[in-house]
């Protein structure tokens, strides 16, 4: 730890006053048949070309965002005694997964305007324009609520260990219901509610082995895939019948 600190102090680049150096425990997540979520350790340090600035404290925000996909959020209403979907709002792009980890309460370390610019908090990360319904906010709130319940959207304030305003580490747990894609990982350094520096990295999440093969087959050769599922069903049916006959004899 001390040696790492010393090294960081020595490596003085004349660029920004404070810069991020990042490490990830793994930069890819393999979805196998027995995949049951994954914890990723995100750690790093702040590199300075001088002594630490005194005064306002430095804070860290880490976001991990799954691939952006368009969504339809529907609202149920009672019609003729039963609850049916009535209005819908198309969300242009919402992350399939989104986690925000911070070293202090988010509202204290990030101003509204900076959040708007950098799209850090969950509501800012969801983009919906051209909605036809007046109460669009209800729909985005509902989306955040639904996904938070599924563990797909996480706000984890005060979960980053930030030592001496230099070394930081946190753990982000990816749930089991992940979709494939590149998970953009961003680290922001903030001071006085404004972003001082940011660093981008990517965690690649992909299906491997038989999961990969089946998914590709289902999408690229759907007819062969359908025929394969039927063959398995017929064989299983035949095997069951044969085993049953054998057992009765």
């Amino acid at each position, binding site marked *: 730890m001390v040696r790492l600190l010393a090294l960081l102090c020595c490596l003085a680049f004349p660029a920004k006053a404070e810069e991020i150096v990042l490490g990830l425990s793994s930069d890819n997540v393999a*979805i*196998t*048949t*027995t*995949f*049951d*979520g994954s914890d990723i350790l995100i750690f790093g340090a702040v590199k300075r070309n001088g002594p630490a600035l005194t005064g306002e404290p430095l804070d860290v925000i880490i976001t991990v965002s799954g691939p952006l*996909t*368009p*969504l*339809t*959020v*529907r*609202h*149920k*209403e*009672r019609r003729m*005694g*039963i*609850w*049916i*979907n009535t209005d*819908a709002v198309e*969300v242009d792009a919402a992350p399939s997964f989104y986690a925000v980890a911070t070293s202090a309460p988010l509202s204290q370390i990030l101003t509204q305007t900076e959040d708007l610019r950098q799209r850090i908090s969950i509501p800012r990360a969801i983009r919906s324009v051209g909605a036809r319904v007046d109460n669009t906010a*209800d*729909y985005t709130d*509902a*989306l955040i*609520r*639904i*996904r938070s319940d599924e563990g797909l959207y996480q706000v984890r304030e005060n979960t980053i260990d930030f030592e001496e305003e230099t070394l930081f580490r946190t753990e982000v747990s990816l749930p*089991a*219901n*992940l*979709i494939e894609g590149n998970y953009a990982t961003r680290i922001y350094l903030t001071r006085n509610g404004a972003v001082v520096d940011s660093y981008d990295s990517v965690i690649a999440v992909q299906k491997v082995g*038989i*999961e*990969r093969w*089946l*998914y590709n087959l*289902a*999408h690229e050769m*759907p*007819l062969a*895939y*359908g025929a*394969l*599922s*039927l063959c*398995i*069903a*017929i064989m*299983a*049916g*035949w*095997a*069951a*019948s044969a*085993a*049953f006959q054998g057992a009765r004899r």
Partner: protein
Amino acid sequence: MQIYLPIAEVSVNAFLLLGLGGLVGILSGMFGVGGGFLITPLLFIAGIPPAVAVATSANQIVASSFSALLAHLKRKTVDIPMGAVLLAGGLVGAGLGVMLFNLLKAQGQVDLLVKLCYVLFLGIVGGLMLWESLRALLRARRTGGAPVRRKHNWVHNLPLKMKFRVSGLYISVIPPVVVGLFVGVLAAVMGVGGGFIMVPAMIYLLGMPTKVVIGTSLFQIIFVTGFTTLLHATTNYTVDIVLAVMLIIGGVVGAQIGTRIGSKMKAEQLRILLALLVLAVCIQLAFDLLLRPSELFSAERG
């Protein structure tokens, strides 16, 4: 043990799936039904997306029906020409059903359609079956004789007549085609084989002898659900082969246990139990539609 389903893109407990398959297998062994009407709603509850649940159930039904059909073929209780006529209607119906399914999916009403279908048909069939078997039970107690069936009804006066030797029938092909068509639509929309509609329709509407009804219904169900599986696989990409295999393994084992339980019980008792089960699922789904849901919003990709 968690297992990640490649198409549904969710991770589910493998033993839960085996158990679901097994439970439905026991029921299909006991009652001679495909069990699709139970497995699809149970998969919804297990957290499988509805579109995947419907398509994969169809695939699972192929396996259980094929296994049962082999037994019926051996006993020569399958009316293949009748099955083929039903099938002709069934394939057209399945095509229409998948089109309807995709149309409503785009409008966000597919859950409603599937649930309404379930409530309606499970209610009608469960109610009728309960009524019938209660009456049969009472009659058997009073007289001890078998009920007499009417020999002719309006169905026998339609044109395009054809001879069905195994069933001993000489009737028009129109009613079987219509029954097949109707069941085909249901198979695609509800992810069921439609045996619970087909069997009463064949007995009461077409006047087929009860001993060939189940085999013939199975014969056509295999083709219709097989076709439905292919259509869902090629148009929606929603057949999850891993999910299907888990359900099939559970179902195969369950069916053997179920057949043994079934052979120890009386036919009327079995039918009353099945009717009660059907009505219970129906009431559960009806409550879902009538009661205020805890979450009024829902989100889906696309």
